């Protein structure tokens, strides 16, 4: 027990032994202090967190915002809309929620064509709990379905791809379809043309400007359709390309289709007869005499001929059991320029003999005529030119005037832009301002391009393309009439592909125009005429007459080459 001598220290409570209680009290105080420290730390930390924590505003705003319209708008070179997304609705039913399935079925069938009332009643009263009715509805239809007013009819939002210009540029744009349909959204996926070839780019969402010009494209299509009807042709294609950049200003293929309501692919027969077939890119044809320009350009480049070199044209030119003939007999020899102007097969074949098959093949490969065109269309990947497996001397001779090698009009446009522009390789493109190779490979010298321009101008002023003359635009060009190959071998006598490959203005080319008609016949004369000079050329001239002013080109008086001589 505690005696008086061991009286407790003032402030100390209890009557316990001195050593032990003191320690215990300190221990308690320490624990208590620790507890308070922890509690205040937690409060302090929480306060600090509240005061300084990142509100994550931007992140949250992004989460809360509904996804903006996703797929990129496609415009022409002037920003006019070619394809855009609009909000639309798909219709689905949840029959278990329906109040009056029979009335709904009856009214829906009356409202939406293609739905059968009896079948709908069966579906609505059966065990199904969910069914799609329509993958897109017009705003009027949406309102009409709302007016039915049944809770079992529901709408799913959709981004509908809309092509406001209808069939204009249909083959370039291609088309889309819905994939993975859900009640909140569906994926829009390209299934043809540019929409498919540039799928990743379009998914990014930034608008895409094409090199096409909507007005020019529409004019080209209209004139081409008129010519096709007038000449009874089965189909037609046209390509208008900027020489300097390779940008395609208009690309038309007829017959065409409306990408808003894309027809189904043919299940039988020749897919080339479907309106979906792009004759300007997918269609590879033997294009005939337009190839003489390429043969002549190579011969000039190799120094084998000059414009005045005389070439043997006595015919027929026999090679084995094969004979090469001219449309008319042009006498024993012609100058190289006249070979082009008169379009002599024999003269061109003789020049090709000098070039030889290896060099010819290498030149055509350099021009890109032996590979699919590098254009931004999914169809182009399959447009492999048809070339002979054995590139014999005979092949070289026939290919020199456009038989035995099948290419597409886009191929030809790029090759012409190369040999008539500044002689450097031109790559076709559909994207406006696309990044280009700044120093493309040189294919022919400037001197060769200058000579080729003069020769092509002479074809129009004095040769087979006289109807291509459009006052003030100095059109140069070359015609090509090729008999169509028979499926079983050989050629049809009365079915041709008539092509005009032109350039304007010829002294400083800005545009290359290819016009190709499938089986045209001109019947104003006493007998039917099928040559390009009577069919493709007038159509091309009308196209130039209409589009050149549209593109702001003013007609100019032709510089007279003789005038400079008299100036001395």
């Amino acid at each position, binding site marked *: 027990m505690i005696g008086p001598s061991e009286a407790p220290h003032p402030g100390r409570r209890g009557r316990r032994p001195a050593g032990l209680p003191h320690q215990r009290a300190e221990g308690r105080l320490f624990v208590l202090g620790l507890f308070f420290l922890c509690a205040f730390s937690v409060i302090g930390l929480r306060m600090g967190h509240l005061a300084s924590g990142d509100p994550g505003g931007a992140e949250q705003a992004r989460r809360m915002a509904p996804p903006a319209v996703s797929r990129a708008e496609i415009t022409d070179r002037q920003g006019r809309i070619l394809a855009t997304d609009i909000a639309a609705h798909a219709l689905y039913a949840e029959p278990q929620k329906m109040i009056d399935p029979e009335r709904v079925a009856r009214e829906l069938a009356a409202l939406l064509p293609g739905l059968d009332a009896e079948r709908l009643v069966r579906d609505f009263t059966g065990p199904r709990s969910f069914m799609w009715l329509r993958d897109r509805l017009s705003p009027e239809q949406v309102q009409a379905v709302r007016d039915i007013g049944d809770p079992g009819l529901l709408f799913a939002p959709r981004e509908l791809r809309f092509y406001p210009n209808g069939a204009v540029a249909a083959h370039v744009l291609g088309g889309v379809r819905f994939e993975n349909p859900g009640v909140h959204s569906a994926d829009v996926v390209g299934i043809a043309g540019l929409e498919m070839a540039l799928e990743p780019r379009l998914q990014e969402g930034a608008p895409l400007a094409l090199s096409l010009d909507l007005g020019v494209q529409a004019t080209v299509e209209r004139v081409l359709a008129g010519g096709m009807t007038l000449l009874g042709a089965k189909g037609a294609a046209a390509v208008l390309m900027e020489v300097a950049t390779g940008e395609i200003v208009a690309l038309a293929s007829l017959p065409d289709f409306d990408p808003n309501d894309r027809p189904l692919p043919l299940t039988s027969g020749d897919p080339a007869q479907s309106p979906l077939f792009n004759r300007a890119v997918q269609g590879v044809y033997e294009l005939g005499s337009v190839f003489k320009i390429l043969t002549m350009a190579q011969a000039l480049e190799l120094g084998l001929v000059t414009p005045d070199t005389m070439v043997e044209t006595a015919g027929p030119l026999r090679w084995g059991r094969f004979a090469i003939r001219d449309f008319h007999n042009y006498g024993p020899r012609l100058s190289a320029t006249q070979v082009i102007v008169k379009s002599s097969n024999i003269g061109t074949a003789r020049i090709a003999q000098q070039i030889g098959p290896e060099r010819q093949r290498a030149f055509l490969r350099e021009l890109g005529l032996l590979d699919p065109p590098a254009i931004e269309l999914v169809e182009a990947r399959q447009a492999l030119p048809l070339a002979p497996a054995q590139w014999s001397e005979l092949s070289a001779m026939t290919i020199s005037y456009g038989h035995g090698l099948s290419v597409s009009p886009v191929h030809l446009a790029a090759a012409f832009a190369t040999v008539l522009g500044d002689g450097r390789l031109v790559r076709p493109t559909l994207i406006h301002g696309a990044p280009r190779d700044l120093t493309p490979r040189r294919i022919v010298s400037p001197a060769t391009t200058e000579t080729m321009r003069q020769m092509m101008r002479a074809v129009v002023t004095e040769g087979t393309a006289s109807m291509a003359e459009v*006052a003030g635009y100095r059109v140069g060009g070359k015609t090509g009439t090729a008999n169509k190959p028979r499926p079983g071998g050989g050629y049809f006598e009365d079915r041709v592909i008539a092509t005009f490959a032109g350039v304007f203005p010829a002294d400083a080319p800005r545009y290359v125009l290819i016009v190709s008609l499938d089986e045209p016949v001109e019947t104003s004369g006493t007998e039917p005429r099928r040559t390009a000079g009577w069919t493709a050329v007038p159509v091309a001239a009308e196209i130039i007459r209409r589009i050149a002013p549209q593109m702001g080109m003013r*007609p100019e008086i032709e510089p007279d080459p003789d005038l400079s001589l008299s100036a001395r």
Partner: protein
Amino acid sequence: MKLLVHLLASLGVMAVAVWAYAENNRTRAVQRDLGLLAHEIAELTEQRMMLEAEIAYLVRPDRLEALVARDVGGLGLAPMRPAQFARADEVPYPLPDALPDALPDGLPDTLAGADRTAAPLRLAEGTAP
């Protein structure tokens, strides 16, 4: 002294905490507004795209051509032709009596010149180079 410092520090902490709390609340409010704005922007964008699509549909080449063919309002529209380009010297001068007798006094020369060019353009209709 020590007590005063403690008191001031505590008050400071409290004031800062109140400020931080208010700031936090404001941030939340702004976030909410931002979300609403984003919604509104998305809605307006959708509407704008719909209107643009409508405009594009209304001025599609096929429709314009049909309207021109029907010659709405007798405008006499026709496709552009090379003949519609002309050089300035191919534009004929107006006939003397087509000019006003005297130019109004006090007009600056440039304005008078503009007046003069307006007349020949009307006279030049139908001329071709």
